[in-house]
């Protein structure tokens, strides 16, 4: 969900993708400017926030980083429901992670908020010599599915801030005030009109 104050927008963002694709590393780079060669795996989920200035407004991202393994799939909806934006991450050195990313896109298209801004991130772009997924292939897929696409590297920081900045620019602006009590409220069936889905009404 995204909320707006005086030129200040709060936006819930979720990272999805195969384990090891670099979700946590992207967040860590964006939020703390760090990179860990041996970033430990995410157990359960992690929550971060970071504010970006876009033109004369600010966007405060409330970021959910999730565990990637298929085994924990059943927990994911808890985190992506009500999200205003998602970054679906794959690892350009792994065709499998690309396949899995496409599955996440499908799931979000089916179950997610229809106005969700979706970014498709081909991470580990610094590992050119191990590349298995071409940028063209990913770009075509992204265009067909209405996502915007960037290759990123959490390691070198290439395109990391940019992808968040792009998302911030694309977030729908005029949104009614939201119930502040947390992500679950958007999903109250009776209150669908307050959910992110209707934010442009």
């Amino acid at each position, binding site marked *: 969900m995204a909320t707006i104050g005086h030129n200040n927008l709060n936006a819930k963002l979720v990272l999805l993708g195969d384990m090891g694709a670099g979700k946590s590393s992207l967040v860590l780079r964006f939020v703390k400017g760090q990179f860990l060669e041996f970033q*430990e795996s995410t157990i*359960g989920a992690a929550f971060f926030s970071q504010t970006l200035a876009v033109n004369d407004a600010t966007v405060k991202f409330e970021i959910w980083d999730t565990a990637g393994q298929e085994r924990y799939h059943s927990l994911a909806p808890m985190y992506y429901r009500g999200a205003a934006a998602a970054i679906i991450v794959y690892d350009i050195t792994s065709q499998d992670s690309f396949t899995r990313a496409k599955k996440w896109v499908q799931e979000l298209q089916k179950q997610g908020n229809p106005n969700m801004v979706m970014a498709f991130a081909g991470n580990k772009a610094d590992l050119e010599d191990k590349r298995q997924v071409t940028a063209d292939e990913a770009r075509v897929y992204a265009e067909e599915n209405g996502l915007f696409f960037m290759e990123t590297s959490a390691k070198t920081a290439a395109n990391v801030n940019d992808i968040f900045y792009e998302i911030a620019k694309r977030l729908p602006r005029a949104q009614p005030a939201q119930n502040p009590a947390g992500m679950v*409220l958007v999903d109250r069936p009776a209150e669908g009109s307050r959910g992110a889905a209707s934010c442009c009404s």
Partner: protein
Amino acid sequence: MLESELHDLSDDADYAASQQQGSASVMLRSDSAKQSSPHEQDDAEVLFSKDNVAIHPTQFASERISGRLKLIKQGSSLFMTWVPYKGHSSEANLSEKDRSLYTIRAVPFTDIRSIRRHTPALGWQYIIVVLSSGLAYPPLYFYSGGVKEFLATIKQNILLVRSAEDANVFLVNDFQNTLQRTLSSLELPRAVSVACGPSNLSVDEPNSPSFNDNQERTNSGANNLSASVPQFHGRPKHKVNDPRDISIQVLEKFSLVTRFARETTSQLFGENQNNGFSGYERRTRIQPNLDQPKKSTDIAEKVPAENPVIPDPKPLDKLSLVWGKPRQPPLDSPEWTAFLDSEGRVTDSEALRKRIFYGGLEHNLRKEVWGLILGYYAYDSTYAEREFLMSVKKSEYETIKNQWQSISKAQAKRFTKFRERKGLIEKDVVRTDRSLAFYEGDDNPNITVMRDILLTYSFYNFDLGYCQGMSDLLAPILFVMGDESEAFWCFVALLERLGPNFNRDQNGMHSQLFALSKLVELLDCPLHNYFQQHDCLNYFFCFRWVLIQFKREFEFEKTMRLWEVLWTHYPSEHLHLYVCVAILKQYRNKIMGEGMDFDNLLKFINELSGQIDLDASLRDAEALCICAGENGAACIPPGTPPSMPIDDGSFYNQLEDEIL
């Protein structure tokens, strides 16, 4: 998981057959309708009623609680109730509180996510009902059969589909709606069977006693929400009418204890409790844990006026002073030797476990003792027997390891599952405890050993496979054991206890988080109410704590200390849940004072990593565990990990069933 992947129950011949028994449930319906109250609303009908459906709150057969399970239709809504029998002679030792705690009061199926059917090789079929909130009821054992009819009746009334991933899991309504409800229902107080605050919504309350039946009314006609005080010696029975009173009663019991303790301890220390030892000690313990040390001394004053914090009904200061005994230095070699007879048997395993519980082990003893407390070696084995077992197990390990080592490249190409598993494991071993000297650096051979053990385990237990978090459990074990085969078998022993944490349907985690919610409700009702009001009752913010036993919360040495303490299963095999309660209680004022919602709570809890005082938490946990006593134990559904291995081997049957 996607709708298209689900197939309907009707493809199952069993179900087609059981549906024909629908007429039987119609008879039951008219039968039960007669018994019900004259106030019954016209549209409430009992579609299914089954006697002798029981829960097993503890592992003791004498403590099982039998009751009647019903499906009730009111308008277009379907409800499930389970009400324990009253005054049953064989269960006379059960308190009313236990009954009330477990009573399922007309839960609507819109609040239910799934039903899992278990068919153990030995014993009764049972089901686990998981709510949309993520909580689950304790397993319901069908002593007189009827699981099929139960499911068939549900299916006749609402959409029930079999999960594509697990044929024993039945999803209530379609996936998409279920997802919506997963979140939306978190706000419904009735998702929890015992409401702690204002009475929960329930069609079976006194003003609409439509679902009461004879069983419940034989006992002095009280409505079925009534509960009596836990019985103390010779005290007259006394009834209370609100479920909230149960915890109040429990707390009163605690406060008696506390008052008693206060008197004794002030004598002991010869000083006034209020400004004495405990207050001072508590502060010095908490101080290093907070960003701004000043906060800790004056938490109450720091709390903003708009967030008044309801005081802890049982401040830990007093409890620790009473119960939580001071931690001891770790067990050392001379003391360890004294526990052994001349041939190496542990003469008094109970005393040993107790000693390790209070102080842990000196590091050099871990290699020898971990295998015993994990149950890999028997306490009464001799040095020679352990040596022998070690060599037998070594070759057994090699055999299993060889199963995957002999898979050729060409074979692996056509063995997706193997490649996937290997891939998962390889991704995780290189990012597990790499800052530790033992695992650090390129081409560290210990990382290869870790990979080999995990891959071998995924062949040893192919159904469970590899799951994120397992490498965290293995890293300290391999570090301590050094030897590959020994580490493997200790890891196996640990996963016999914790395996269900990694089940695909998350049932091991659900039951632990459910138990945790019950324990907080019992031990800190205001905090429970706070979580309820802030949609935090699913306790997912404690997921990491529970899944890998606090591995990420403490530095490596402290994790090893905590684990050996937990593995003693003294004073409870579920002490880890009391550790959760203890930590939450330590930070309750901050959590409530700052009005944390789910997001911020999860962030806060994750960031506590490295800041929790282990000894203080253990001491508090012990105090809480002892104070909660049987009432605490009753909060924990049977089979909640870590299941204590039972000598007769039935444990393994159960585990097998869990992992399916």
